[in-house]
């Protein structure tokens, strides 16, 4: 592009009206390039940080897997890293993690969907604006408060109904975690539902559908990709959540899916080890990274499932 000396172009007249000036186009191209580079840097940084975390996880778990065969790691049902004859069956921790997350979803899916349907299809704008701050409030409660709520309030209350419930158990933190992820799943689902075009709802009403039928048979199927994403991400949160389970589910590695018993989840184990002072390089120390790697893979798996579902159900309006 031939450059034009800036003195030739009258700065006040540089505009696109009535034909672009050369200088205007040059300047625009320059700022476009700058913006592209800034955005690229931001994207690259986030990818690099993720890769860095994966690298550290893998690097520090390699020595662990040199001592513990993968088959034992995946099939053993004991997790006793600090015992004299240490056992490393990570499924012990995984079972507790999945149990809590499943209970959380059992709470969050119906309640979240119900709330989202109510806010998007039933509530008038005024009511919607009145309810939303409460959801945000719920979201802003520190997780440690949720943990103590589960331990000191919900567990004793549940014990009056379920006599066999241990003081530390998976049920109470699971329920509390369901409430914790509810605002997130509900508001993301609601956004997805509200972005369903009105014309699609009208098609349902025109056939004689009731409001509920429109919600269940038109809006939810149309918003399914967004709703699935909301619940998959909610599930990821539940799997990675630490404080509630560390406080209310106990620290005892315990294989099984019984919600009435206490058991350490992956995150509870990691935080427990991180708070003790483990000798650097010991097998127990390395086991933290192996457990972290498993946690990462589970989360990754959920996100991949979510990604796949989103693509499968992606709707074009």
């Amino acid at each position, binding site marked *: 592009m031939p450059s034009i000396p800036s003195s030739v172009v009258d700065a006040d007249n540089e505009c696109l009206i009535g034909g672009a000036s050369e200088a205007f186009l040059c300047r625009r191209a320059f700022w476009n390039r700058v913006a592209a580079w800034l955005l690229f840097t931001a994207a690259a940084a986030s990818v690099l940080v993720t890769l860095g975390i994966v690298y550290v996880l893998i690097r520090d778990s390699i020595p662990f897997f040199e001592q513990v065969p993968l088959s034992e790691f995946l099939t053993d049902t004991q997790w006793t890293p600090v015992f004299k004859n240490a056992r490393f069956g990570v499924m012990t921790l995984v079972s507790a993690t999945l149990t809590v997350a499943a209970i959380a979803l059992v709470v969050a899916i119906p309640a979240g969907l119900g709330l989202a349907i109510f806010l998007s299809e039933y509530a008038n704008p005024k009511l919607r604006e009145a309810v939303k701050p409460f959801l945000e409030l719920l979201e802003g409660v520190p997780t440690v408060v949720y943990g103590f709520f589960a331990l000191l309030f919900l567990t004793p209350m549940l014990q009056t109904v379920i006599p066999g419930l241990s003081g530390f158990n998976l049920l109470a933190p699971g329920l509390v975690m369901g409430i914790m992820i509810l605002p997130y799943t509900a508001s993301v689902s609601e956004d997805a539902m509200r972005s369903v075009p009105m014309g699609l709802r009208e098609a349902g009403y025109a056939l004689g559908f009731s409001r509920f*039928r429109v919600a269940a048979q038109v809006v939810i199927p149309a918003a399914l990709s967004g709703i699935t994403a909301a619940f998959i991400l909610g599930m990821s949160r539940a799997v990675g959540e630490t404080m509630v389970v560390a406080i209310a589910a106990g620290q005892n590695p315990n294989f099984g899916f019984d919600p009435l018993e206490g058991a350490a989840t992956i995150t509870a184990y990691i935080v427990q080890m991180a708070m003790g002072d483990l000798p650097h390089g010991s097998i127990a120390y390395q086991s933290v990274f192996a457990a972290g790697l498993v946690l990462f893979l589970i989360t990754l798996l959920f996100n991949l499932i979510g990604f796949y579902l989103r693509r499968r159900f992606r709707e074009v309006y």
Partner: protein
Amino acid sequence: MRNSTKTRVKLLMNEMTSSPHPFGATRQRQDAQPEPVSAPALRAEVRNLDFWYGATHTLKSVSMAVVDCKVTAVIGASGCGKSTLLRCFNRMHDLYPGNRYAGEIQLYPEDRNLIEMDPGMVRLRIGMVFQKPNPFPKSIFENVAAGLRVRGVNGKSLLYERVEQALRGAALWDEAKDRLHDSAYGLSGGQQQRLCIARALAPQPDILLLDEPTSALDPIATAKIEDLLTVLRNTVTVVIVTHNMQQAARISDFTAYMHLGKLVEYGVTEKVFTTPQSPLTNDYITGRFG
């Protein structure tokens, strides 16, 4: 009841061809007019209908008839209230707050004002096809079956029978029969619109409303839908809004011309297009306006 309706239609049609105000002050002239060849039955009759979007007075004392098993076209310039009028028939305006009706849309043969009926009940009897194809995010089969299921049709064989019938009725069967269980979004725009027609036809509505059903389509898809409407003629009662005057002239039996929220002319299509009573209609159909 039916008889009395028939005689009323005779009166109506006589008036309509003679007066720009179909229900105006010319009733006493009825005897002077020649009798129509046969008096068709009415499906619905709009009487002095007013409609407001909030404070905006959009329909002003509209009166017109919807004749059984005939195609009634509503024409007029953009923004004159055609869609608004059409959406009164199935109470679509009730979905949004602040809208208000006054007047009557009498539904026959039972002679009830649908403005006072439950909107859900009205919509179970009056089907609608929109300007933009809006199939549900479901399979082709489920789209057509949706209106049947909501009316309690659940037997598999009956559903299949009715779905096939509706798809044939909408001239989509040959293109869709091998992909009934594929997503409706895999169809082309014209096919999607015919699917929407099939969906509206499947429950056999008393009246089928069409709001510019071909305006988003290319000429070939448009021709297919026009052919389809010609076939439906004499079996289904249709009210169609269209921008396209040739289309109205080709496919309709009766035509209503609207201007700024008022119904200026209503009558047999041929007469409206050849000897319009109102200068406004004349200007519009000769292209001097709108």
